[in-house]
């Protein structure tokens, strides 16, 4: 009987501190250029001249929120479909992982994934990706990112249990349309989050 493990992310708690990014990098010993977990910030709004007071500007609908993304361990992983050697597989527990001994580094998975999960490791010459810290969870520990978040904005578990606990949301702008690959993720939207594909803002390079 197979399960579907996945992440939970609470955008409403995320302060873009990127502790999760570094905890993951540290645990996986990734070189520069490879980050299994990334944080993207999305902002919007504008400034308008005050209607009556000269020299004063009014902030108009200024908002910003952040999204922390690793691998979605998709229910319908396109990276597995396109892999020519069978290196990329979906395990019984739902985790999508790459077998680096079989990988030839063709990078088709990287080109197909809407979430940027498979990344080429220049040092090793093969693909690498988030595997939900399968070695840690086998040992009863949490994935490095989940354990690290100072705002407790990350969790992981069986997808149906995550949905019971946190709700059904699985995408917010600027993430891709979930119907592409059915990500095994629950996302609690930020209070100002916009639905995917309907954003009025823009991705901003975070300081």
């Amino acid at each position, binding site marked *: 009987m197979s399960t579907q493990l996945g992440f939970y992310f609470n955008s409403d708690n995320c302060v873009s*501190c990127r502790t999760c990014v*570094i905890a993951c990098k*540290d645990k996986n010993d*990734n070189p520069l250029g490879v980050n299994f977990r990334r944080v993207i910030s999305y902002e*919007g709004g504008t400034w308008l001249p005050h209607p009556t007071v000269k020299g004063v500007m009014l902030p108009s609908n200024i908002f910003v929120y952040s999204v922390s993304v690793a691998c979605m361990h998709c229910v319908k992983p396109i990276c597995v479909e396109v892999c020519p050697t069978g290196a990329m597989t979906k395990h019984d527990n739902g985790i999508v992982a790459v077998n680096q001994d079989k990988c030839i580094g063709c990078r088709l998975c990287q080109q197909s*994934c809407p979430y940027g999960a498979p990344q080429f490791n220049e040092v090793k010459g093969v693909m690498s990706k988030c595997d939900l810290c399968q070695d840690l969870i086998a040992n009863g520990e949490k994935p490095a990112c989940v354990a690290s978040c100072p705002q407790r904005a990350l969790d992981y578990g069986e997808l149906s249990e995550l949905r019971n606990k946190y709700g059904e949301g699985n995408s917010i702008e600027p993430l891709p349309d979930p119907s592409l690959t059915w990500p095994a993720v629950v996302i609690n939207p930020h209070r100002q989050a916009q639905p995917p594909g309907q954003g009025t803002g823009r991705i901003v390079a*975070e300081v």
Partner: protein
Amino acid sequence: MNKDGIISQTLEKTMLTRRSFLKWSGVLGGTVALTGGVGLGFKVLDKAVAEEVKEGKWIPAPCWLDCGSKGFNKAYVVDGVIVRMGTDETVPESPDCPPLRSCGKGRASRNSYLNPTRLKYPMKRKNWEPGGGKKELRGKDEWVRISWDEALDIVSSELMRVRDAYGQASIYSCRPGTYLGRFLDLFGGFLQGWGAYSGGTWREPGKFNGFPASFNDRIDLRKTQLFVLWGSNPAWSRAGLPTYYYTQYKKAGAKFIFVDPLYNATAQVLADEWVPVRPATDHALILGMAHTLLVEDDPATNPLIDWDFLNRCTIGFDKDHMPEGADPKENFVDYVLGTYDGEPKTAEWAAEICGTPPEKIRALAREIAMTEHVVIAMSTSPSRVHNADSWPPVVMTFGAMTGHLGKSGSCVAQDGGHKTISNGGQALIRGGSSRSFNHPFQRAEPIGNALSGGGMGGASLDIIPLEKDGIPHTILGNVQSWPAVLEGKYQAAKDDIRPLNVQLMYHGHESKLTNCVGVMKGIEAHRKVEFVVTQNVWFNPDAQYSDVVLPVTSRWERYGDLAEGFREQLLWTHQLMEPWFEAKDDIWIARELGVRCGLDPKVIEPWSLKQEIFNQVADARVMNEDGETMEPLVTITNKDIQEFGVEGEPQQGRIPIKEFQEKGIYHVPRKEGDNYGSVALRAFRKDPENSPVKSASGKLEIHCQSYADYIKHRGWSEIRPIPTYNPPVEGYEDTFADWKNKVKGEYPLQKFDLHVARRTHSNYDNTPWLRETYPREVYMNSIDAAERGIKDGDTVLIRSRHGKVLRIVTVTDRIIPGAIAIGWGSWIDIDEETGIDMGGATNTLSGAIATGQEAKGYNSCNVQVEKWTGAPLLPDHLKPPKVPLKDENL
């Protein structure tokens, strides 16, 4: 499909493409592999290998970056190699007693201490000779590796030569650190630094007007209905629990309003409302709010002002409550109403200065006044402004008039202290005691610096007499450091200019060139004096501009560290690795210098670090459940003493010492209704006569002549006894050539410094993982950018009256137009030809301008920004690291 994928776009926006990465990794050679996380034995431990290796051990890991927050770190060590970092899992998740999770910097520690820019060997500058040699080459000379003997001989002989030629005060060590400081004290004294770095203008006024600006206990603040976070961004600047506590309050229904030039990362999660304000104009905003309340208040029909508290507990608010002998016209109410100066400080008056819409000023004032439980919490950043000496007093006044002092669920507080942000009250657990000499605030048998009156550096000059036993005290205000070194004189007080002849600079415990205003003058100063020596973990700018550089160990390479968390945690962390190459401990260096200078090393280090830490642990005290008495934290048996190999006495405590050693952290258990609560000024509000504050009158002195006298005595500028607005040097007003007609001048924008998540001050600037994760440093408003043809990601030249820097810009609407925020602490990197700081340090832009109590005015700085037409800057993580010695043997 994915080339246009959102995530790839973002990756490419913020990092160079993989093709460029390959090219640079070729240049960097083995460095890339090193920064991928290689242990000291240069073994690469990947997952497959890890499965075959024997079990490792979690060891609590020191982090001492001085961010003002605290996180618990631990390192998983396998076969002597640090494999990965972890954090606190000693207590289960609960709102009452949450684990002390660490931040991204803690997680990146391996990448910081196993890093090619770490100093490996003692070095001297190729073109150095006693007396300086070619001093003009400091900062751009070549380096020669030398032995420890030669290095210590040079340093000690230069110390003695310079001291004998020019006197003790010719040796300048702004903040030497504990052990180097003891050596210099024993050496006869030295020129020490004075003045706030973090504290801004909060440093002095409380000593005169009685205002402690403390938080209530965090459980008490669960009552708070409205939090006004003013110039406050704890999510990045005090990572960890402070924001997590605030988030708990938010989820429970509290409202959050942010007053800030930037809609910052903390606002992102918490803000219900953003009140934008120009940097350095916060004082005007408060006056606009005070005016609103004064004209709208009616005690019968619309009570907005807490007249009862003002009348009983303060002096100087209105003409009927003045101190004896004071001019009755010099009261706060009449100033705000404009009774005598004809300038009522209306919300409109304020808006012209602070840029906040006047309707927002009025609305904020009413909301603060009408809400029963309010916290006004601020960082000290609005006070790190020139001429802002009256800012803390006006904050106090506003808190007093709105009724939020001394009540449960309310407080007006600043978090310049390291333990109290969002969690005030007496510490529930204390490490260290009089038996220890390394604990801050308490020292056994201090040697004392003869030149600063025997006290610790940083004490106020009004407390230390300027002369004692015929020895003039010499202590150098930090803001005027570089001008004083260059001009050969400094200002000790009003009409008291004294000669100064600094000829030796010893950088011990701080990154002076990075952290001190006026970098370009600092470099001149470094090229003027006869000898410069730095001891540091990394090859930082101080080291770069030195004659001799000594590599020191980090705390990962010595016995251990005991540190308090917030009021509720104590952390005992341990050694993780052997010393890096030839790096030595600061303690050893201090002793060796002492021996060479004919001093007794046993006075410098009375007992070993292990004994010192053991003493501190033995003397750690924890609050009992009664909330009044304390008991020893640890039980120590004779067997323990033997096994530790130290001197000591057995004792009874709460937990076994070995348990504390293994876990590395102790949390004081908390729960709703416990006896650990604290409400700042509660007793004072209830009964000011019997529980006075520490002012001369015992009341909160809104009219405070003694403070005005103190500021006048410093000799830089004057303030009135009531907190009036003083337009700052290089504040908003100075961006105009013609204020009345609002014609902008040569430096039309306002720069302020941002504490970014990437660094703590200058620490970890050179850590590759952090450079990659936080690639941007500058926020600029989209209107200001468009006016200049600047697009997001452009390289921009930022110029001030004092220097110029290059940075890559993020164009955003999250910052008020007219302001530009720059990440603080980046290492300087001066291009000798153009004079441009390619490292983008904020202190290259900030001037060495002393006002009032000599607080650093980082956030009052006028700049101009233009698109850079030269070669674009590389993102920091792709810049080759500065490694001083060419013959690497990696």
